[in-house]
């Protein structure tokens, strides 16, 4: 009896995953600035557009392979900053986004989401290569680019789109095959051992 209920649990989970495919197909039709029916919890409109642009630059769509915006990573960033960050972390993060905006406008006279791809990349490259002046004073958490990039990276690869459409997803492998050829799509497994 106990075993049967366990199997039911597993089928239920697979059902969820299948329905997720439809969901992700829907959301991948979101274009760059269409956020209809969704309101950020913590960012104002300018901050949200800035975050979304950064997320897109760091992990873009490549051909048919979804990127971070397709995976709604920008929405997750908003949710995490709103619901899971401490008050102090939240304040720092919002200051960081505003500082990015100020620095972009200083260099290019426009917000980052209105720049063309070349200028966006130039800005982020400069940020990545810089000694870090985007952090609120007194912070010693490391380079803001690395913190932000790694946050986005984790969010992307642990999203449903990242896990199941970009990487190879295998929730119940059944057997362990110790030495196989590489998968045709050349991608890694998504679930960490």
């Amino acid at each position, binding site marked *: 009896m106990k075993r049967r209920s366990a199997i039911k649990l597993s089928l239920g989970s697979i059902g969820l995953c299948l329905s997720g495919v439809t969901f992700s197909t829907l959301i991948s039709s979101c274009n760059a600035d269409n956020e209809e029916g969704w309101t950020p919890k913590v960012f104002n409109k300018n901050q949200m557009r800035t975050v979304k642009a950064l997320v897109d630059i760091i992990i873009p769509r490549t051909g048919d392979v979804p990127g971070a915006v397709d995976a709604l990573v920008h929405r997750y960033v908003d949710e995490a900053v709103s619901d899971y960050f401490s008050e102090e972390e939240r304040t720092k993060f919002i200051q960081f986004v505003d500082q990015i905006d100020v620095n972009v406008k200083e260099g290019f006279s426009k917000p980052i989401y209105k720049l063309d791809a070349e200028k966006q990349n130039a800005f982020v*490259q400069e940020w990545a290569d810089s000694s870090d002046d985007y952090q609120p004073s007194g912070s010693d958490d490391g380079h803001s680019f690395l913190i932000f990039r790694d946050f986005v990276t984790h969010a992307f690869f642990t999203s449903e789109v990242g896990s199941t459409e970009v990487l190879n997803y295998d929730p119940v492998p059944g057997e362990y095959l110790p030495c196989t050829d*590489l998968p045709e799509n050349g991608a890694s497994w998504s679930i960490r051992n």
Partner: protein
Amino acid sequence: MYFNSKGKEEVTYDAIVVGSGISGGWAAKELCEQGLKTLVLDRGRNIKHGDYPTAMLEPWEVPNRGRLTEAEWKDYEKQRRTGYTVNHYTKQYWPKDTEHPYNEIKPFDWIRSYQVGGRSLLWGRHSYRWSDLDFEANAKDGVAVDWPIRYADLAPWYDYVEEYAGISGEKLGLKHFPDGKFQPAMPLNCVEEHTKSKIAKAYSDRIVTVGRVAHITKPGGHLGRGTCQNRSRCMRGCPYGAYFSSNASTLPAADATGNMTLRPHSIVHSIIFDDETQKATGVRVIDAQTNETFEYYSKIVFLNASALNSASILLHSTSARFPDGMGNDSGELGHNVMDHHFQIGASGTHDGFQDKYFKGRRPTGTFVPRFRNVDKATKQKDFIRGYGYQGGGSRESWWRPAEAAKFGAAYKEELVAPGSWTMSLHGFGECLPYHENKMSLNYDKLDKWGLPTLDLDVEWKENELAMRKDMKNQAAEMLEVSGFKNVRPWENRCKPGLGIHEMGTARMGRNPKTSVLNKWNQIHAVKNVFVTDGACMTSAANQNPSLTYMALTARAANYAADALKKNEI
């Protein structure tokens, strides 16, 4: 005051088992199957097999992708010290430190689990027999006291528990690392096979094998337990029952006899001692939810509350006969705390096998059995005893560190593709029993049930620290020899307790003046009280100890049932 509203008959059993983890589950199963009406007490809530709500969840289905927030972390300040135990998927299985305090005279990471099934739901599942190299070690080295048993006493019980629990592994034919009744071994991946053959060529005394783990790999497990699905999400609870836990295995078996009464939320206050008969007559219990107190009576008591908690109950069971705690004539109760020291080893990367990959997440890695101080040829001048290596090979994925300034399409493509093959060797070393490594009860700091908290005063000493140097050096050397690049010896913070193998607080021995338990795990002076969890261990060896707890428990429980039938206890 303790009183029961029910009649004494209703609260009287043949046996009481305190705790339902790895060893308590076995005590329950064996005693019930021997026909004894058995009350199983656990201080935590009940968890029925299959009731694992996070088992199938993915990161995008849970808050914050499974990461705990700073506010959540605050409740688990000590339980989180392992770095791998507490997360969104498992936090329901760990006690909040804020509710279950203890006191660190010296740093000690006491990682507990208070629920039916205890840490059997969360354990590492590595299962290795001890040998006479281990059972004779104290006598040969003149350390502490001699074990009152030898491998021959335990070998048939290892057979028995292995067959039932389901241990997968490879036979090696080593006398100091005995083979068992194994289910088919899990296979090694290509980089591990490579390492195995290189090590075999380079060393006459070292073997790389696959970890022997308590996972069913052959259909037909007892009680419908299924085979391992290679999900490697074991710590969330296994819906297939593929790894051994009390919840999936021994408790359902005990329940099937009709002889078991399971009472969760039952904190044992103390064991009741009767001066006239010089025996225990039962236990005093505090209901963890209502704070009501009860007494339960029985002919025998099995203590399986985990090493520190079992000793705590005994120390708290004072009487005119035992003013310093039940069975503490020797003064050794609560002393000789041991654990394994680890968090040290080496890792490296391999340039080869770039066109090879794997499928599935095998829930074990490689194991290198002890090769130091095994015989004259392997005798070390800086330390006695030895260590083994866990570890394994794998191929990196998106979680690997990327180049600092990278982003964009190239960054994404790099992380999506499999990275380098890596191999790690992670030492687990033996810790000696030292009388001064001890726990004691603190009556100035009571917990929320009015019970004393524990003061833990334990440290690694010279032998452990000398062994660690060798553990690190040999790991690096073995990886170099096997052709790995970027070989990095490493060492992390490792304080006692972190190995989650607490042992030794009520040791077995031949002499009542220097030990707490006899060769049948009975308290020398209270023959109807048995302690068969980690508390009973006279030395620690270097192997993961749970399989030995299982074998000792099954042996003691069958002895107890038999002795009871013969009116000997």
